[in-house]
């Protein structure tokens, strides 16, 4: 039996620790089992290739998720096969640079409750978000990364992370407080 090189053994040990997290996240990102497997594999192959750049003792999960998010975004850019997947360039009017108006976003009646939401409705509403809102919300609320890590993963400023998460949540609230019968 041949011995496994030390760097590969170290990588495999870390990868195995986060493998199901990565697979779960890949599944939520791609919404497709086969694509999720491909994304996880591509991510780990790329991560292994760049493993020399990983500093032991730092946050492996954030490091490998960054690779996964980049891999996903690049694959979406290449494929551009989902109409709802839009550009990752800054959305006009979104930014803190003055065009974004929270007042316009906040027309939802209070009192409509989000409590006791069936997971399926929430999942469907999340799946229907455009990627530039869906991925930051996923990374924040599902994967529980801080804004600073998300900014690094997506290569966007902290303020943009915050506004995308906010706008993503606004859209989710709007979708979830609609009459379930009228939801598509």
């Amino acid at each position, binding site marked *: 039996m041949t011995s*496994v*090189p*030390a*760097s*590969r053994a170290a*990588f*495999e040990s870390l990868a*195995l620790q986060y*493998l*199901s*997290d*990565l*697979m*779960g*996240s*890949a599944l939520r990102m791609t919404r497709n089992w086969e694509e*999720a497997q491909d994304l*996880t*594999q591509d991510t*780990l*192959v790329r991560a*292994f*290739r760049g*493993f*020399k750049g990983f500093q032991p003792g730092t*946050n492996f999960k954030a490091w490998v998720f960054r690779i996964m998010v980049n891999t996903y975004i690049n694959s979406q850019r290449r494929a551009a096969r989902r109409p709802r997947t839009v550009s990752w360039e800054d959305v006009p009017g979104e930014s*803190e*640079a*003055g065009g974004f108006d*929270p007042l316009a976003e906040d027309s939802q009646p*209070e009192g409509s*409750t*989000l*409590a006791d*939401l069936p*997971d399926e409705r*929430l*999942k469907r509403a*999340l799946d229907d978000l455009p990627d530039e809102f869906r991925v930051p919300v*996923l990374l*924040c*609320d*599902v*994967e*529980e990364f*801080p*804004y*600073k890590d998300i900014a690094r993963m997506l290569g966007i*400023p*902290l*303020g943009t992370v*915050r*506004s995308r*998460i*906010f706008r993503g*949540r*606004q859209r*989710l*609230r709007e979708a*979830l407080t609609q009459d379930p019968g009228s939801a598509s």
Partner: protein
Amino acid sequence: MDSATEPLGPGPSAGLGRHLVSFTDHAEDRFDLLAPIFRAALAQGCRCLFIGHRTTLPVLRDALAGRGCDVTDPLVSGQFRFLTAEETYLQGGCFDADRMLDSWGRAAVSARSDGCSGLCASAEVTWLHQRVPGSDRWLEYEYRINELDGLDQVGVMCLYDTNTLPAWLAPELAKVHPLIHADGMVRANAEFASGADQAADVPLAEDLEPAADRLPCAQLALLLSAYVDGQLIRRRRDEVARHLRACEVCAEKLESYRTLKAGLASLRTPGPVTPGFWDALRAHLANGPDPSA
């Protein structure tokens, strides 16, 4: 903290390779800081750059010359450059943090490719209180200067005039500069907040806006979302908490964000991993090149 209170020196090279802040209420104090640093930087072959109002150049040149730093020849040779805010921070009539950070990176590269040993820059930002579009990202921008590649070859001296600076902003600015100039000495800044563990205290874009407890409820929604995530600076957090105690509508909205966040967190389930997947991946890794080789 000993290292934070140890003076690094009265000026000269202490401002090189560093991000420094100074709060003064008098232009003469700013020239006192700049002259020895620019003099040393020029002697070391650095490019020096000052960004100011177009009327500032003759005043700056005379003030530096009066302090033993003659920039006449360096201005001609290009080793000392003067640019206006309109040419830099305010291109197109607004402040774009990303564009400006890119510009610093390019300026450092350009200095090196012109044969200079580094870049030593300073600026006056009196336009900041004029509520220029995009200036709400100023604190984020200042923080991100610390993350510029090659900062060791770039010195950035941020000189704030306390006559025009809102009082609450100075301590927030202090948090984003690793060095501070005070009492004629450059010191490591004990207030500097660095590292991911303090990310929540890195000021974000809202910080040049009115206090949260004076914002209309609808505008507070953006802050509520970040509040739920624990991603507001302490001062903002306290303001939002005060607003929430007095406003049922926002308290209800906060609750809906919390419910949504909890619902989303419940979607976090591990993905199924088949043994075949892991075996195939291991084989793939084994067949590829060893990255440590």
